[in-house]
């Protein structure tokens, strides 16, 4: 078998083609990253400048600004549910409603909520359900005037997307923010998120996302990030860098050319009207955030209304990242399956000029460089092993090439860290920055192979139709400090 492989790859054309494929793919990716850095720096500078004309204090005191509902689904989060709700209630926005959706929890979440917030049952007979969801059992509101902004929906379990849809149905505000109950949202996050909607001019904003940060081992007090610390272990530590790079470089750059296809499920704001028009989140896919964003874009393309998807560079939402390799693999496996499903659902977009840039550029990018990257990496690895075995690799050149590519990767990560440190004051201690840089430089060895494995596992499941749901993502919980 080794001989036949050697004969196959040894034929000049296949060998050259393989080499040229990987080389071209790498160069294209490099160019995209470089363009990303340029676009992202421009976008960040512009966002900061714009913020000067619409400051947080301006929005806080303004009347006539859109009302916002934050929808937070919770499933079996009894341990932390009270703290989480208090944290979400403390978000500062004048016209703010919080809808907590208890998605059929089997623990004591509901009892705890009723007791703590003095909730009373309201008639749910006449609730309209523009988006069909699992049965809504009851609606609860507080008798206590301190909690007038809180509504709790108690429903049968239907999954995260279904719970979000129930909240969207029940909301009455213009804008809806979808998040998770265990996320720590910055106090002024809604004020900042609403800015693009206030400033929209020629294009309607159909989705707005904010930066998401990893807060493992940070100190939380009263549901507020009291002290942002870097995680103690390497897996979440590298994720800090990964998120900074993804949000600051990737999302901002795509936002700059209105090419964003994804607003993270952990924290995204949408006009309720448009959510209802497209039927909310798709409960059948595990990548519901990506799927929704693409569906919204398609909907606007079909309507022929100019639109925009925007991202804010600042970290507005903190979440707990997978603390170890096994949970990381589960997460990336799920993301990969979600991506597969969304790519499949939207295959009609592929080089479809009817959808303009989305069909010609953005979808193919996602297909080749987001969906395709793990495949290319995996097959690249196989080729290296095979070519190495056949003795076709010029090792001194290969090692130098690897070193050059590695350094390029380090430069992109360092650029992202530089932009973050320059623009925001989350990581201000020299020690923290050095640790972040070290994590970035270790990433290709201790982290990246694992996520490729997770992604390939997800693809494998899809390819062989192995049933798998969300999987359990065990969280350690933040460090809570009493005031």
């Amino acid at each position, binding site marked *: 078998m080794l001989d036949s492989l050697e004969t196959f790859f040894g034929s000049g054309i296949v060998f050259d083609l393989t080499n040229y494929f990987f080389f071209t793919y790498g160069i294209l990716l490099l160019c995209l990253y470089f363009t990303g850095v340029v676009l992202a720096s421009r976008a960040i500078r512009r966002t900061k400048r714009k913020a000067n004309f619409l400051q947080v204090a301006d929005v806080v005191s303004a009347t*006539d600004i859109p009302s916002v509902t934050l929808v937070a689904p919770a499933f079996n989060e009894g341990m932390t549910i009270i703290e989480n709700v208090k944290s979400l209630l403390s978000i500062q926005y004048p016209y703010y409603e919080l809808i907590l959706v208890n998605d059929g929890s089997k623990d004591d979440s509901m009892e705890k909520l009723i007791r703590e917030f003095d909730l009373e049952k309201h008639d749910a007979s006449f609730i309209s359900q523009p988006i069909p969801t699992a049965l809504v059992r009851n609606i609860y509101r507080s008798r206590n005037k301190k909690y007038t902004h809180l509504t709790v929906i108690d429903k049968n379990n239907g999954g995260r997307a279904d719970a979000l849809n129930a909240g969207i149905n029940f909301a009455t505000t213009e804008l809806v923010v979808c998040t998770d109950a265990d996320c720590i949202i910055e106090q002024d996050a809604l004020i900042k998120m609403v800015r693009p909607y*206030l400033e*929209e*001019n020629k294009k309607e904003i159909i989705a707005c996302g904010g930066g998401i940060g990893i807060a493992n081992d940070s100190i939380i007090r009263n549901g507020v990030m009291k002290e942002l610390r870097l995680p103690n272990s390497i897996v979440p530590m590298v994720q800090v860098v990964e998120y900074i790079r993804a949000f600051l470089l990737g999302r901002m750059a795509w936002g700059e050319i209105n090419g964003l296809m994804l607003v993270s499920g952990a924290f995204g704001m949408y006009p309720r009207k448009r959510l209802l028009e497209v039927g909310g989140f798709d409960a059948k896919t595990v990548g519901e955030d990506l799927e929704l964003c693409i569906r919204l874009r398609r909907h606007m393309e079909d309507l022929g209304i100019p639109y925009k998807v925007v991202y804010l560079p600042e970290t507005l939402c903190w979440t707990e990242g997978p603390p170890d390799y096994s949970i990381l693999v589960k997460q990336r496996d799920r993301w990969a399956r979600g991506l597969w499903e969304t790519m499949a659902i939207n295959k009609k977009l592929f080089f479809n000029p009817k959808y303009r840039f989305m069909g010609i550029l953005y979808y193919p990018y996602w297909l080749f460089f987001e969906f395709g990257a793990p495949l290319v990496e995996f097959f690249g690895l196989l080729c290296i092993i095979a070519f190495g075995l056949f003795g076709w690799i010029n090792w001194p050149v290969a090692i130098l090439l690897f070193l050059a590519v590695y*350094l390029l990767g380090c430069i992109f990560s360092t650029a992202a860290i*530089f932009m973050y440190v320059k623009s925001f004051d989350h990581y201000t201690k020299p020690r923290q920055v050095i640790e972040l840089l070290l994590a970035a430089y270790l990433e290709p060895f201790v982290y990246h192979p694992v996520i490729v494995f997770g992604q390939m596992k997800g693809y494998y499941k899809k390819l062989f139709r192995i049933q798998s749901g969300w999987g359990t993502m065990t969280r350690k919980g933040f460090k809570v400090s009493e005031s």
Partner: protein
Amino acid sequence: MNEVTLLLLIKILLVLLVVYWIAIGISMFYRRIRMRRLAIIEETFADLVSRYLYNDPENPISISQINDRLKKIGIRPGNRNNIQYLISLMIRTQRTIIGSNFIKLQKLYGMIPPYGVSIAKIGSWNWYRQARGIREIYEMNQSHYLDEVLKYRNDKNIYVRREAQIAMVVFLGWESLRFLPYLKWNMTLWQQIKIVEKLYDLYPQPDLKWLQKAYETDRSFAKRLLMRIIRKFELHSEIDYIMKHLTDEDYEVRETAIYCIKTFAVSRADMSFIKAEFDKIPEPTQQLQLMNYIFENSDIDVPFYLEQLYGPNEDIRLSVAEILWNNGHKQKVQEFYLQQYPNTSMHVG
């Protein structure tokens, strides 16, 4: 690609990496010093302003003392960043206060730096500096620059023209409605909000002459702006203008009209008019919003609700059913559902 080229590439990349490290170091060092400096400026300014507004007769503070202290903390013509920060503090303070202290503050601002910095920015080629300059001029009420600022009201940069238009309202008050509805460019929601607020804070006495003249406009943004003004000033005499736009063909105009009418309790005749217009609204979500308003502001009009109950939209039917059910007309709802689903029994309530 040979080894020599690759080695050269690696060297270049290493240099680039080192440059980034140095940049990170400098940026962190600068930020630390800067934050300390800004804290000192803020604290000093807070102390000076509070002492100036409420001067202690036993230990009064003079303008020269204020200027000396400002100079000591780095407010000098050569230090543009410090001056810019001081300006932002001055604006922040001025926007916080009205009444006699507002006038006192203006007097103070005329006697301390930065003299003429804002007007110098207007001539800049950079939109950011221009817009900031205009903003500073109107926030600090430097009305003598009105003519220079007005030139930019139709500028192609959204921020420059937006600030110029707000300046127009700050300096001209209600009379600015002569121009606003006829501007070349669209007006964002934030612009409308800001204009209404400036008008409300600075010119609380409505001048209906200008408002009514502006009704002639057919621009969507202008209609929305005018309705917001009527709402903010609670101009009961002008609600006809809002009612007229409940069925406007533009979604946004209808949305604003429904939002604004909610502020007012209308007469029976006007409510009848609104009910008559109800079916002409093409969006069920907007009809629902108006339905809530009708319910909260008028007696139960059974024929009107029954008409909607037997209407085509499921969400409206549900909403009407709830209203009738909770307001003494359970039987009507039961009749409706029995007619719709003759083989099922109701489990409501």
